[in-house]
C-alpha cells in the first residue's frame, strides 16, 4: 500500500486584511474616546454600590475638594449661554474671545469679578493658575446659586430640557461646604441631584 502523503502547507497566513481591520478599529476607538481633561483640583470620589451612569449631556457638575467649589456644565453651547446670562446678571461684559475661552474650559472656579482677567490670561498661565473656587457664602443669592440658576436657564433656552446636577466631591472633604452647596441647590428647588461615585468592586 502506498502511503498517503499529506501535502505540506506553509503556516504563514496573509495578515494584511487582519492588520487593516485591527487598525481601523483602533482608529475608531481612539477617535471616539473622550480625551480626559485635567480637573483643576484633585478629587477622589467616594465608592458606592450604585450603578446609575452619569448622563453626558444636559448635565452640570459641581466639583468640591479642599474646601473649594468648581462649576462645570457639559457642552460648549451651554457654557457660552450660561456665561451670557451671568454677564447680564452681574453687569460684567465679556469679549467674544472670553466667551470662546470660557466655553472651552471645563471647570471654572473664579469669582465673577476676577473671571474676566482669568479668561484673558495666556493658555499656559491659566491652567496653572490656582483658582480660589466659586464663593458659596450663605447670603441669599451667592455666586454658586447664580451659576447653577444660569446654567439651568441656559439649558432651558438651548435644549428645552431640565438640567441635571451632580456633585463630585472629594471623599475626605469636610461636610459643611457640601451642606452649603446643597442649600444653594435647595434654594432654587433642585431637590433631586446625583452624587458622583465610583463603583465599589470588592465586597
Amino acid at each position, binding site marked *: 500500500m502506498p502511503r498517503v502523503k499529506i501535502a505540506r502547507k506553509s503556516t*504563514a497566513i496573509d*495578515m*494584511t486584511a*487582519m*492588520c487593516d481591520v*485591527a*487598525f481601523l*478599529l*483602533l482608529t475608531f*476607538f*481612539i477617535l*471616539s*474616546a*473622550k480625551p480626559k481633561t485635567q480637573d483643576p483640583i484633585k478629587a477622589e*470620589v*467616594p465608592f*458606592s*454600590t*450604585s*450603578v*446609575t*451612569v*452619569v448622563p453626558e449631556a444636559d448635565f452640570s457638575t459641581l466639583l*468640591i475638594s479642599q474646601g473649594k467649589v468648581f462649576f462645570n456644565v457639559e457642552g460648549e453651547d451651554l457654557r457660552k449661554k450660561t456665561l451670557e446670562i451671568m454677564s447680564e446678571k452681574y453687569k460684567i461684559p465679556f469679549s467674544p474671545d472670553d466667551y470662546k475661552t470660557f466655553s472651552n474650559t471645563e471647570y471654572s472656579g473664579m469669582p465673577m469679578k476676577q473671571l474676566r482677567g482669568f479668561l484673558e490670561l495666556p493658555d499656559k498661565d491659566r491652567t496653572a493658575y490656582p483658582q480660589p473656587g466659586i464663593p458659596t457664602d450663605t447670603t441669599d443669592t451667592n455666586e454658586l446659586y447664580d451659576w447653577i440658576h444660569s446654567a439651568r436657564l441656559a439649558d432651558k433656552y438651548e435644549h428645552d430640557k431640565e438640567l441635571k446636577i*451632580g456633585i*463630585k*466631591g*472629594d*471623599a*475626605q*472633604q*469636610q*461636610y*459643611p461646604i*457640601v*451642606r452649603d452647596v*446643597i442649600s444653594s*441647590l*435647595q*434654594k432654587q*428647588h433642585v*431637590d*433631586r*441631584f*446625583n*452624587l*458622583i*461615585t*465610583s*463603583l465599589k468592586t470588592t465586597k
Partner: protein
Amino acid sequence: MAELDTSGGGKKDGGKVRTKKKAVRVDLTAMVDLAFLLITFFILTTTLNKPKSQELIMPDKDDKQTKEAVAETKTMTLLLGKDNKLEWFIGLPGKTAPAVISYSKDQLRKTLIDQNAKIKATHNGDPMIVIVKPSDKSTYNNVVTVMDELNIVDIEQRAIVDMSPVELDLLKRDGLY
C-alpha cells in the same frame, strides 16, 4: 514597482544599475498583535470607566403641606461624627441611649437591618424612617457611605437634616465632635 530605489542616481559610466529584487512580504503578526492590544486597552478605558452616580432626593424646604406627624418610635437618627464614627438612637434624643458604631458592614448595616426588622414587627409592617444628621466634623465620604448602606438595606424613607444643639451635645459627650 512599489519599491524605493535606494541605489543612488549615479549613471556616469552608462552602465545599467541593477536593483536587487526582494520579497515584499512582511511578517505582520507582531503588528496585528500590537494593534489588538491597543484596541483592548481603548475599549476597556472608554466603556468601563464611566463614573457612576447615586441619586439623592432632598425634601423640599418650603413644602409645608406634606409634613405629617410621624411616630417617634419609628424613626432612627444617625449622627455622623468625626474619625469615621457615628452614633444612632431610636426616637427623640435623650430618651434612648445612643450607641456609637463605625461605618463597617458588620456594624452599620447590621444595626440598620436589625432595627428595621424590629420596627416592622412592632408597627404592623411599617418601615423604619431614617434621619441622617451629618455634623461639621463628618466627611462627604461618610454621607455617601450611609446613603449607600440605606440603598443596600432598601430603606426608602430617609432624609438628610441639620443637627440640633441637643444632638450636638450628645456627640460632644461621646467624643465624636
